[in-house]
């Protein structure tokens, strides 16, 4: 590492911060120092509490215990505006744009340059926006509305917004997930120039290469706790993984070998304009097939189209030889397809409803007689699955919001396993859940495959893909760019195919 951080006082620090949501302890006694002229990496698995930490710094959440210090003085950010005033700029994982407003306004909302009479100086605003984009090396029309921007462009607008703050503290929560290599390089250049100006940067990423390339110090979190903070020179990727996971990686993915049976799912020539094209794949009974690729490559869209919640323009989907009508989830369910969607809170669960009602939502008709629901059967069915999946819940009549992420995911799994599917599609099955539950989910998927269920798994976590899958399909820009057997699949081969680089993959 060529950069040595000067021993400056921290611009911003968290001191013994704790934060809980219901029964979930998102942060427990976390302390962290962000020094000027330093890029600080933050690593941790999904659900380790990184996003909560970011929102605490941003003033969205108020800590239950502990406090935030800005330049050595304890402060209480009660609203995002307070944090902004203290010079904190945040790029969130999810873009937070106003679709109806122009790009320039999105960047400068609330801080628009003013002309005489406190009137917004539109020309100055547009020029400033253009200047920011020039620094990022992209050209986005500042006058177009944000609606319809691609995820990457939205992310670029967010970055421009954060740059426009002249922030003393810049927090970037997985900003690179949707960016291309060139864009990532530019972002890094911006981050380094901010560091050169004496700002503090907190950088969160799942990509170790980026972390090691950019950061000066790295903090690891796990299960809402601070694990370690070390200068980057003293760490290896292996150290990081061990600290993040808390145990050896190899034990995590217990996929049993099963002789694959007949073909359950067969997809041919699936096409949707602008989203995915010419997708063909098949999954056999007892097999786990992983669909890998970068975020935005179109994997979730493919499995949603297969299940019928999204439409597709052409192509066929067959389950056990019978063609599924497009756009009809109920038909897919009847054919024995289950989809555990990627966004648990939005797509997987009805958060306000009770655990048992969520768990039985897919089986409303089979649990009723003469068209009337039988509450006792419902309760029994829910209790049965709660037991089988070792659900940790107070009462099954409590709302699902009271559960931790991992247990919520179990409810989603229960809801779908209860339909006794032939084909189980899981989209990011372990995103945002704790390590213990993660292992349980992996064991469960493996068991299910062992029982002859065909599993199609979309995952962005390479270790998971490599550990669990019998075959790996890699998508790049809406097309399947490689099909790798278990032996062929390595981090390198998958990443090459996922980033669309020629030669090495398949």
């Amino acid at each position, binding site marked *: 590492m060529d950069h040595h951080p000067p021993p400056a006082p921290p611009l911003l620090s968290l001191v013994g911060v704790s934060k809980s949501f219901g029964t979930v302890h998102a942060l427990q006694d976390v302390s962290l120092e962000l020094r000027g002229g330093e890029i600080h990496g933050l690593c941790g698995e999904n659900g380790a509490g990184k996003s909560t930490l970011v929102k605490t710094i941003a003033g969205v959440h108020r800590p239950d215990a502990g406090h935030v210090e800005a330049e050595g003085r304890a402060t209480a950010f009660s609203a995002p505006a307070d944090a902004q005033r203290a010079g904190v700029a945040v790029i969130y994982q999810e873009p937070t744009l106003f679709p109806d407003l122009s790009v320039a306004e999105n960047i400068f909302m609330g801080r628009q340059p003013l002309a005489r009479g406190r009137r917004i100086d539109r020309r100055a605003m547009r020029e400033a926006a253009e200047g920011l984009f020039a620094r990022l090396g992209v050209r986005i029309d500042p006058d177009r509305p944000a609606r319809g921007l691609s995820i990457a462009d939205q*992310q670029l607008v967010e970055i421009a917004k954060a740059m426009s703050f002249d922030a003393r503290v810049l927090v970037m929560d997985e900003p690179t997930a949707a960016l291309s290599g060139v864009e990532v390089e530019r972002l890094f250049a911006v981050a380094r120039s901010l560091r050169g100006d004496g700002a503090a940067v907190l950088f969160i990423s799942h990509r170790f290469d980026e972390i090691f390339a950019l950061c000066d110090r790295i903090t690891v979190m796990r299960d809402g706790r601070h694990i370690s903070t070390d200068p980057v020179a003293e760490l290896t990727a292996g150290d990081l993984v061990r600290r993040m996971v808390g145990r050896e990686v190899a034990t995590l993915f217990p996929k049993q070998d099963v002789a694959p049976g007949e073909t359950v799912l067969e997809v041919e020539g699936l096409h949707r304009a602008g989203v995915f094209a010419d997708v063909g794949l098949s999954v056999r009974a007892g097999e786990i097939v992983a669909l890998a690729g970068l975020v935005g490559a179109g994997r979730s869209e493919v499995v949603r189209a297969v299940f019928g919640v999204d439409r597709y323009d052409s192509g066929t989907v067959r389950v056990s030889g019978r063609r599924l009508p497009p756009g009809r989830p*109920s038909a897919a369910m*009847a054919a024995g397809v289950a989809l555990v969607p990627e966004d648990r809170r939005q797509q997987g669960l009805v958060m306000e409803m009770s655990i048992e009602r969520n768990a039985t939502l897919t089986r409303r008709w089979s649990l009723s007689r003469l*068209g009337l629901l039988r509450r006792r059967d419902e309760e029994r069915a829910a209790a049965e699955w709660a037991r089988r999946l070792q659900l940790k819940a107070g009462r099954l009549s409590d709302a699902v919001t009271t559960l931790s992420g991992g247990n919520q995911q179990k409810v989603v799994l229960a809801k779908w396993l209860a339909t006794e599917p032939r084909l189980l599609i899981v989209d990011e099955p372990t995103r945002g859940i704790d390590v213990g539950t993660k292992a349980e989910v992996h064991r469960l998927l493996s068991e299910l495959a062992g029982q002859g269920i065909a599993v199609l798994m979309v995952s962005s976590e390479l270790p998971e893909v490599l550990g669990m899958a019998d075959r790996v399909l890699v998508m790049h820009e809406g097309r399947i760019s490689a099909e790798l057997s278990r032996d062929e699949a390595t981090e390198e081969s998958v990443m090459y195919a996922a980033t669309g680089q020629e030669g090495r993959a398949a």
Partner: protein
Amino acid sequence: MRPSRPAPSDSPAQAKESEPIMRERIRFGVTAAALAGVMLAASACGGTTRGDDGGSGAGSGGSTAEADPDAEIPEGLAISFLPKQLNNPYFTVADAGGKEAVEELGGEFKEVGPSEATASSQVSYINTLSQQGSDVIVLAANDPNAVCGALNQARQAGSVVVTFDSDTAPDCRDLFVNQATAKDIARTQVEMIAEQIGGEGEIAFLSATPNATNQNAWLELMEKELAKEEYSGIEVVDTVYGNDDDQKSFNEMQGLLQTHPDLAGVVSPTTVGLAAAARYLSSSDYKGEVALTGLGTPNQMREYVENGTVEEFALWDPANLGYLAAYSGASMSAGRITGEQGQTFEAGRLGEYTVRADGEIVLGPPTVFNKGNIDDYDF
């Protein structure tokens, strides 16, 4: 992070149905079919068409007892006024007249009514009055038929029902106190407009609602009156309806004048319409060019009479109308009259009145107001 995706679309039903949804749909289908079946079966057996049964015949609360012209009007008679709508100044004045009469008679006066002039809300109030055991209900009906059922129930429960201003079907009330015979009203208005436009030219009517009982009767009689030889120079070119709504009347008046550039005069046989029309006229270029008359209250019209927009207009005194209605109801309740034609009764300061055919009592010819006498009236 996910790519932004287009709006989700689950296309509507196609060929094959899946199990649960299928059942869902079948259930809906069966229910709908059953419902339709029942209805068709009902319609198959015979049919009740118009003319089968001559309209809404109700139980007549009719007069069986003999009239006793000398019967005492008892003290404490509960007489309730139910106008078309509270907050309508015309009825506020009329009801005040009723109150005066009730106080003279030593009865209990009450004024209730809906905020909006609809028949359905009047029905609720009729029911309430009947439930309270009101002896006399004095009503101005919003709909001649819609209130009938409730009125007949009230009569069966012992209330005397007197309508004023706007009548109901004759078989669901005991007496109707008419402000003036329709003929008188029509003739007065025709005379006024003919004089103001000099006996010839185009005129138009600005009425209340197209199903307003009174206005329709007057319009018809006015047309008849205008058909006479002496009015041959006058042509009725249009009839528009302001719905007794100030702004609507205003707009309709405006429309009239624009569509008929040669219009010489407008007759508005409704107080709301006349006031709105006068207001429009007084602020437009047509002021003084186009004559305007009709039925209006002195207070509303005073300004326009004084500034020359309106020469003269007519109306009965609504206070007297309410006064007479109260006396009629009390007399009937006491048994002085039974509603038969030809019976007479004393109505306080107004003197003696005679019951005409169909239980109708007429207040008298309308009063014509002009610059000379308008300041003598305050209502």
